[in-house]
């Protein structure tokens, strides 16, 4: 039977025919946790009496959510994770290295891999053609020890993309548009499989942004075929040997197909307090923004900083609006330094924080005050998400973020391009 990408990966992994709806126990190629889910993972692992990791080279702890730690208790959690890494020999990505999902994309994920992480945005690696999904700490503790986990093979929704993004519009606008269209539970338990003519020219950073937010529609996976762009990305990351092509079969069975013409998209914003509360940037022009946050596993890559730089170069942020920039990884920071982006952003009034999750989840580096509004390039705007239930988070693209920083109000970037 013709297979979707999700089915095909599990067929290859298990060496037999599997189809949507089946329960399978699959080996995992990579299992990881981060500093807010890792301590419980470690405790469950130890409490279960597990003695040995299935594969220490494919077990990773990332210190990224509270990095460097803003609080004593979180610093103590970091000690627990460092000690576990020393004791078991697993891989440790310490504070300042960057967000787990960015490092997984740069250094670890391969097309066709099965990847599980104790973080919902593990779906990001689907951009490289990996079967990658988030789970809780207990599941990851078991994956650490057994090197396997169970899945229900998901049905897939095919997202067929055509056309080209108009100026000022990017992958973030597409995924916000899609989530607005199908809703925050529009793909629950299912895979969002992206394909079509437009994917052939879509950059890896764009794919990562889209795959990252698949979970905001409830999806188990946000997955792309691997192709020449994947191959080039892996080569640029110094691991060309990790490439292999993964494509869906012609005639594979989809739960439904949604077609989107990129040329019809406009700068799009998710309003507080749900990601599917979507409208166009131009509909929100009177909304005052106190903080603009450019970064995260959604939009903290060099391409994202580049878009912001093209708008902010030689300009200043509006008085009363602060711009917080957090590169997604140390690699992104180094590249941005070398090209001169950091200087341009700082001259425009930005502050730069260390690579990691930054202000996204309300722990540090930009917690909001009562009544304040933030326009963020992150992936979530739930009530209280940025550290204060009495604040408001709008989600948008790097271009919309930069334009908003300039004007102090939610802005349509096409007006400043």
């Amino acid at each position, binding site marked *: 039977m013709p297979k979707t990408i999700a089915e095909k990966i599990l067929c290859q992994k298990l060496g037999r025919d599997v189809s949507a709806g089946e329960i399978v126990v699959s080996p995992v190629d990579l299992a990881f946790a981060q500093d807010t*889910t890792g301590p419980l993972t470690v405790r469950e692992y130890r409490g279960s009496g597990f003695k040995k990791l299935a594969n220490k080279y494919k077990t990773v702890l990332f210190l990224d959510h509270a990095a460097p730690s803003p609080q004593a208790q979180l610093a103590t959690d970091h000690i627990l994770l460092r000690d576990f890494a020393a004791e078991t020999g697993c891989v440790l990505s310490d504070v300042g290295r960057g967000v787990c999902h960015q490092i997984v994309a740069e250094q670890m994920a391969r097309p066709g891999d099965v990847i599980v992480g104790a973080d919902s945005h593990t779906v990001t690696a689907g951009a490289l053609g990996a079967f990658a999904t988030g789970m809780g700490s207990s599941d990851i503790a078991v994956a650490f020890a057994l090197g396997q986990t169970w899945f229900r093979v998901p049905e897939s929704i095919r997202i067929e993309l055509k056309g080209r993004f108009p100026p000022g519009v990017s992958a973030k606008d597409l995924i916000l548009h899609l989530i607005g269209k199908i809703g925050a539970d529009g793909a629950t338990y299912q895979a969002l499989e992206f394909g079509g003519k437009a994917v052939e020219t879509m950059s890896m950073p764009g794919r990562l942004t889209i795959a990252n937010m698949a979970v905001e529609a409830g999806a188990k996976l946000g997955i792309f075929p691997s192709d020449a762009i994947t191959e080039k990305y892996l080569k640029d990351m110094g691991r060309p040997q990790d490439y292999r092509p993964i494509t869906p079969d012609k005639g594979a069975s989809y739960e439904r197909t949604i077609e989107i013409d990129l040329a019809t998209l406009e700068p799009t914003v998710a309003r507080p307090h749900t990601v599917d509360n979507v409208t166009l940037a131009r509909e929100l022009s009177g909304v005052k923004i106190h903080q603009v946050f450019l970064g995260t596993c959604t939009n903290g890559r060099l391409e994202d900083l580049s878009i912001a730089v093209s708008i902010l170069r030689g300009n200043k942020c509006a008085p009363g609006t602060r711009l917080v920039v957090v590169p997604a990884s140390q690699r992104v920071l180094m590249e941005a330094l070398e090209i001169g982006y950091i200087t341009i952003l700082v001259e425009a009034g930005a502050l730069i924080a260390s690579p990691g999750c930054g202000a996204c989840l309300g722990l540090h580096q930009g917690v909001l005050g009562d009544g304040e509004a933030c326009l963020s390039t992150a992936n979530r705007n739930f009530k209280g998400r940025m550290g204060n239930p009495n604040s408001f988070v709008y989600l948008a693209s790097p271009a919309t973020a930069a334009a908003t920083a300039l004007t102090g109000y939610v802005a349509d970037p096409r007006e400043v391009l």
Partner: protein
Amino acid sequence: MATLKGKAFKFGDSISTDHIVPGRLAHLRSNLPELAKHVLEDADPTFARRVQPGDFVVGGQNFGLGSSREHAPLVIKMAGVSAVLAKSVARIFFRNAINRGLPVLITDTDKINDGDELEVDLGAGSIKDLTNGADLIFKPLPQAMQALLDEGGLIPYIKKHGDFKLE
């Protein structure tokens, strides 16, 4: 199987893991009794002190959307809640709840009002609202999840079986 009895605490649609345990309290995740005092704080700040052992959390659509933090079902269970009832539930929360031995029952929660006394028969798949007389049913869990729940969650299951025997 057990019969559960308690009071319904009704919440709306789209209760996220940030409503249940917000990121700003991440420093309490290694101090679970303290974290549990804040359960569902951003949805109802009075919930933690009003909930009694055996009570039910009753949500609407897409309960538990968002983060993979297992602390969300964990603190709901620690508060004494015997089951979560919702019209639909987000994938990772669902998996985490079962892994923690917290039943999640998918049913038409519109028929239940805040404060109603409920009686749940887990074996029969039925819910009786003792306050308004409504009779509800819930879908049985997928077999794999039922196998985990029957052992009290994922870790007890693995301790007993040593491995997954779900296929």
